[in-house]
């Protein structure tokens, strides 16, 4: 099948790989087998499932925050499929997060408290919504694309407060109530008038079970992302990011590829939104606000755009810092700095207090600036620097694939 373009004088039937490769696998990095994928997946799964243990020392060993890590990890993973792989920066992904939440709560109201049904529905609805928004937004690229997505998300946000109040319940937010039909649950003999929490076939998803439910979905989402990244589809997305013109002159219709990436990442956002509703069955329009869209951009950049693990780390770091800094108040600061003389103590507290509590976004802004200026590749780049330093002198070439290596 694959004959040479030139009349081959070099022996028929042997591929260049066979001819050149002396012994063993000379194509390090390039040919990294699917086995190494499973090793990465296993390590990732282990790390995620044992988070309650190894994150306890820094005060993050409780389910509420850990499930936030997982949920926003999923959100960022999906966002990265669009932004990181194909280079299209959406500023409206919170619309899909919010849609997912609404869809899930509606399932809790109409059908069942089973989280699986809610989550699947959230993914489907967000996917359809993403198809519509993506179809229009992808008529443009670059900054115009970003603006279009932002506009759509803000429109959704406003509609949720106005025209769509029958679906969204406006400012109050959508929640479950005793009068909901919950058809499936009633059919199964449950009393619809007793308000229950979302469950997974009988396991109430509160506390630790809630976290593990999210964690397993995060691991699944990670696995799917990994497959996409290494797939032909993933390669096409990276190629579009690198040179969309060349893609066109190479015979590819690039827009369908981008739309597919957009929809997939919208579905991830829908899943994340659905999970937010699972852990707390309440959906509000504020989830769709542009700040929420901006947040996932920051998470992805903070962790490392286009890398596999970066967005998950970025999401966790951001949610952790948010938790820490927003919980500080002046009283806490005074206690922390009470080793200083009173005058100096007041001074330090005055300086520091705008950065904590409500003002933690200032800290976030600073952190973001530092990362973008000193580590444009995000936390993953930092990690790569460190490992290279440790391994210095061991081998010349890096074993990383072409795309993660910059």
């Amino acid at each position, binding site marked *: 099948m694959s*004959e040479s373009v030139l009349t081959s004088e070099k022996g028929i039937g042997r591929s260049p790989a066979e001819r*050149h490769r002396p012994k063993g696998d000379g194509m390090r990095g390039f040919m990294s087998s699917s086995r190494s994928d499973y090793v990465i997946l296993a390590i990732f799964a282990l790390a995620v499932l044992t988070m309650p243990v190894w994150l306890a020392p820094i005060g993050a060993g409780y389910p509420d925050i850990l499930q936030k890590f997982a949920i926003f990890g999923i959100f960022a993973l999906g966002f990265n499929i669009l932004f990181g792989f194909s280079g299209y920066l959406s500023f409206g992904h919170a619309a899909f997060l919010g849609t997912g939440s609404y869809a899930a709560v509606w399932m809790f109201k109409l059908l069942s408290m089973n989280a699986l049904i809610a989550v699947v529905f959230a993914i489907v609805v967000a996917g359809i919504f993403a198809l519509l928004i993506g179809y229009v937004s992808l008529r443009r690229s670059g900054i115009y694309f970003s603006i279009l997505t932002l506009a759509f998300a803000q429109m959704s946000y406003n509609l949720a407060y106005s025209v769509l109040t029958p679906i969204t319940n406006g400012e109050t937010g959508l929640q479950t109530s005793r009068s909901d039909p919950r058809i499936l649950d009633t059919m199964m003999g449950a009393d619809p008038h007793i308000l229950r929490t979302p469950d997974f076939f009988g396991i109430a998803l509160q506390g630790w079970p809630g976290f593990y439910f999210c964690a397993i979905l995060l691991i699944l989402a990670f696995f799917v992302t990994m497959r996409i990244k290494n797939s032909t589809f993933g*390669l096409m997305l990276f*190629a579009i990011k690198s040179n969309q013109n*060349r*893609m*066109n002159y190479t015979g590819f219709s690039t827009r369908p590829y981008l739309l597919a990436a957009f929809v997939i990442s919208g579905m991830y956002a829908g899943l994340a939104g659905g999970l937010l509703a699972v852990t707390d069955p309440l959906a509000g329009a504020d989830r769709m606000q542009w700040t929420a869209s901006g947040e996932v951009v920051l998470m992805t950049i903070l962790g490392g755009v286009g890398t596999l693990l970066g967005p998950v780390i970025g999401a966790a770091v951001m949610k952790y810092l948010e938790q820490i800094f927003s919980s500080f108040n002046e009283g806490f600061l005074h206690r922390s700095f009470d080793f200083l003389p009173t005058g100096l103590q007041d001074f330090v507290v005055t300086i520091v207090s705008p950065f904590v509590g409500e003002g933690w976004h200032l800290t976030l802004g600073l952190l973001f600036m530092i990362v973008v200026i000193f580590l444009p590749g995000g936390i993953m780049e930092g990690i790569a620097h460190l490992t290279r330093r440790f391994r210095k002198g061991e081998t010349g070439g890096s074993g990383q694939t072409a*795309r993660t290596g910059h």
Partner: protein
Amino acid sequence: MTNDILSISGVGKRFGGLRALDDVNLNVRQGSVHAIIGPNGAGKSTLLNCLVGRIIPDEGSVTFDGGSLLGHSPHQINQAGIARVFQTPEIFGELSVMENVMIPAFARKDGAFRINAWARARERRAVREEAEHILDDLNLWEQRDQIVNSMSRGDKRRLELAMCLVQHPKLLLLDEPTAGMSRADTNNTVDLLKKIAERGITKVIIEHDMHVVFSLAETVSVMAQGTVIAEGTPEQIKASDKVQEAYLGGAHL
């Protein structure tokens, strides 16, 4: 003529007040090597842009392999069998050499759009072998894992040629394929292009290097100020007064 793979007739294009192309007529015979020469700004690249769908001509017609090219998008034109090497390499700078060559091979195998989000790209055997052969033929094998941005200019041009050849195009458009290459690289490229000619790929080549033109082309068209002023065999062109004038009288050479 029935064995013309490409016929351009009456093509014109204006950029504001500038007539970049003015009633261009050009026929390329199936299987031939057709060179286009001419001073800077003559409209050579603009003509190629009309062929690949980057620019839509204001007037005229372009027929390739029995069908019109006008009104088709670049990816459709490529799928119809036209591949192009650009004057400044259009390649995937952040990806590896191997990936750069596999991508066009995928376009040939899978068409303009196909989602294959599960199987590993690198394990598509047919595509990989095709890419490996081309890399081998173009002496890029040793660099297959290198990131393209870190390659020399000459190597980038060779890579772009590889990306076109891996598609087995019916018509290959080359816009100054040896510009920026060393003498040795230029000679290698000429040898290579001669070999491809044996395989029957029709080529249109824009070139400033007369040594390259006269050692490759069977037909030479001379462009100046947006139109074809002469056409003939290399010998005829060399002897033509009109051509001498276009070059010597032109402001650029």
